[in-house]
């Protein structure tokens, strides 16, 4: 019995880890409800119901959940992968942005590529750009011992301004102060998802990107758990000294981890702007939110790649709910606050996890003792 239970999804996630994440979510939602009460007591209940249920209210909303979740699953994987190897990749935003630019550039300019190959080329370009952008903090850390957090933050700004400049120089649409539309065959195929997830005639932005994100998560799981590379990278992350002692090159490990992490974030950028939802890169001096959202997504899942799929979907779900809450005159920022609280508590998730494990042990203990006596 127990074994069957352990082998399921819960086992993969680690039951106590998942439970602790749920506890964090519950506390965050409760706090969110209080926020709504303070903001507008009469509509709080209705607004909260919208927040909780509207992601599931119809198929179109569910499609939107998938659409919003796709890029943040990717950045979540990026942050999570780095986290597993002991690095804090706060530079996912920058990698995301340069990835997005390269994808869009290919999507606009490489008209000579036929059909699907254009989309593939754009995705590859994005991964490559993200990888390069991630490799720089990695190299700096490995060879010059520069803290990756600082260099990542700098790379975020460099990336943002560079992309703004390049968009204006190469693929600028004056009327919208944004990038030009990509060719239609550059977009990730919708695979009929838009036809499933629709509300009457209004289609959702759901597309095949979600499958790419899920594949990426599975790939990350396989790399970390099944390969020698994952073994090395995790050893570096868990105990750098022991890794060095064993002859594993920590320097190479750091760079490799940042390259993979950057590629994941870059792919996320491509999946957002090649979604066919008519989204363009706006020329504004704001760091891409999707990159930062990767941090809570990874945290909430305790860096577990399979968990990240679910936490990404959850944050996407909340985003849709927050959007619909505007019906009751709540600003969508309230959702950001609720998500922030959830994240805040997910930092306690580890603590809660320890508590749950202890509880479990005690139960087992008392069970054993009772059985023995």
């Amino acid at each position, binding site marked *: 019995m127990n074994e069957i239970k352990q082998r399921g999804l819960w086992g993969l996630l680690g039951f106590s880890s998942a439970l602790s994440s749920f506890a964090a979510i519950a506390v965050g939602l409760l706090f969110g409800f209080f926020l709504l009460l303070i903001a507008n007591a009469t509509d709080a209940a209705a607004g909260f119901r919208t927040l909780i249920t509207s992601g599931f209210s119809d198929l179109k909303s569910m499609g939107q959940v998938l659409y919003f979740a796709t890029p943040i699953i990717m950045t979540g994987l990026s942050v999570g992968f780095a986290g597993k190897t002991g690095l804090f990749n706060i530079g996912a935003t920058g990698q995301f942005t340069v990835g997005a630019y390269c994808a869009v550039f290919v999507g606009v300019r490489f008209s000579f590529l036929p059909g699907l190959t254009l989309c593939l080329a754009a995705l590859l370009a994005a991964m490559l750009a993200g990888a390069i952008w991630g490799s720089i903090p990695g190299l700096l850390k490995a060879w010059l011992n520069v803290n990756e957090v600082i260099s990542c933050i700098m790379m975020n700004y460099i990336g943002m301004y560079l992309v703004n400049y390049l968009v204006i120089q190469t693929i600028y649409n004056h009327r919208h102060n944004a990038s030009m539309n990509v060719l239609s065959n550059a977009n990730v195929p919708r695979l009929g998802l838009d036809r499933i997830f629709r509300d009457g005639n209004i289609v959702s932005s759901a597309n095949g990107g979600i499958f790419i994100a899920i594949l990426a998560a599975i790939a990350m799981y396989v790399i970390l758990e099944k390969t020698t590379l994952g073994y090395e990278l995790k*050893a570096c992350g868990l*105990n750098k000294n022991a890794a060095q002692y064993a002859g594993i090159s920590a320097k190479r490990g750091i760079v490799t981890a940042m390259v993979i992490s950057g590629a994941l974030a870059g792919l996320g950028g491509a999946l957002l702007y090649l979604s066919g939802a008519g989204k363009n890169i706006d020329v504004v001096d704001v760091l891409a939110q999707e990159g930062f959202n990767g941090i809570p997504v990874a945290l909430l899942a305790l860096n577990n790649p399979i968990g990240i799929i679910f936490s990404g979907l959850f944050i996407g779900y909340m985003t849709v709910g927050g959007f619909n809450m505007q019906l009751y005159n709540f600003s969508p920022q309230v959702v950001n606050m609720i998500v922030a609280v959830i994240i805040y508590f997910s930092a306690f998730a580890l603590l809660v996890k320890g508590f749950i494990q202890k509880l479990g042990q005690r139960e087992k203990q008392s069970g054993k003792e009772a059985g023995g006596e």
Partner: protein
Amino acid sequence: MDYIIEMNGITKKFPGVIANDHITLQLKKGEIHALLGENGAGKSTLMSVLFGLYQPESGVILKEGNAVKINGPNDATRLGIGMVHQHFKLVHNFTVLENIVLGVETVKHGLLSMEEAREKVVALSRTYGLEIDPDAPVSDITVGMQQRTEILKMLYRENEILIFDEPTAVLTPQEIAELMKIMKNLKEQGKSILFITHKLNEILAVADRCTVLRKGKGVGTIEVAGATKEGLSEMMVGRKVSLEMAKSDIDPGAVVLDVRELTVKNKITGKNLVCNVSFSVREGEIVCVAGIDGNGQSELVYALTGLLRAENGQVFLRGKDITRATVRERGNRGMAHIPEDRHKHGLVLDYSIAYNMVLQHYFEPAFQRHGFINYGAVYAYAAGLIEKYDVRCGQGVKTAARSMSGGNQQKAIIAREAEREHKLLVAVQPTRGLDVGAIEYIHERLLEERGKGKGILLISLELEEVFSISDRILVIYEGQIVADLDPKSVTYQELGLYMAGSKRKEGAS
């Protein structure tokens, strides 16, 4: 009633273990009472109960016949119980005097008045023969003086019951002799001493009575007069233990490791940590580097094993220059390494024991194919080592290294290193923090390696270990090898003088 402290029938349970099972410890006034037991026997738990850090499930503590309840260290201090911890609790940038009065400062009008305190400290140090310099910063004084400072801290607080937790672990032979004298002195002045240790010689030298714990149970309390080392160790471990290692004579073979004028510098200060060191290790030979902790042993090992760049000099492994080789190249050439710090270097604690067993092998064809680890092979290999080396781990090969006891972690490392294809074994304090049973086991393994014709470089701080298994002793002092000695013709005292830097052999590098 002549017992100053009695702990009667103390039971303390933790989830899964009974740390103390009806233990009785009775300390007479004015005696030195040794508390002997292996790691995990329950000594620390018992002391924590005495200090009120744990509340026992059952049992009572009596102070001079009256039951007392100890809810925390403050209660213990009030009852006159003081402790010198194994790792000193001193503020390094304070002076000796400031450390002694810390927490019980004499204050006048809200300002410190140190003069009163100074007089009291000086008087105390004279009475008990505790030589200190009250104005020296703790960071500048010797370990011995730091310990005397700790003792004065207890005396300053007028503690009657003094607990010494493994006090000799950090001392040279001379300092140990000094400490023994101090302890006897304290006893004569009417203090009662509880002496926690697993060194049998010291018990025989100073203690009046000895209580032995084994696996959470009290084995008994005996008069030390008339006791023998063998008897004590048998009580402690529960079986006969051979203290003298039977060592066969082996003619050392070819040179395995050759170190020539090796120098390692501190990157920041530019100070020489290892200075112009030359020596060699041959097949079938245990060469021991003896010295007081912090004299360059760690850096020497780091340079030999590839964790640190040498500034100057050369290292040859089986005739090949490996001065600039990577850790893995050295390993492939035949170097195995039992590191000093099993938590920092030896193990990835959050990896399972199986993962740890292949830390240097995971990339070999036997354990992977096309970059995918063959877990079946890894688990089978690890299970074999666990069986062969009798590593005890609760959940088999998937046990997290973190959850294992120190002794078994060390066994796991030894299993891993001994099974590597190697010609040279660098073992750094392989018995640190282990109990007699485990030490015996590890020494047997080292001698077995020697018997197989491996060269062994042993770095040790334990003189008994140095004498019982080494073939040659190199003494390191301030980064230099100051003597190359034969253990058969040198005494503890002489070795101590070399270690303290007050003697130096002509001709040594």
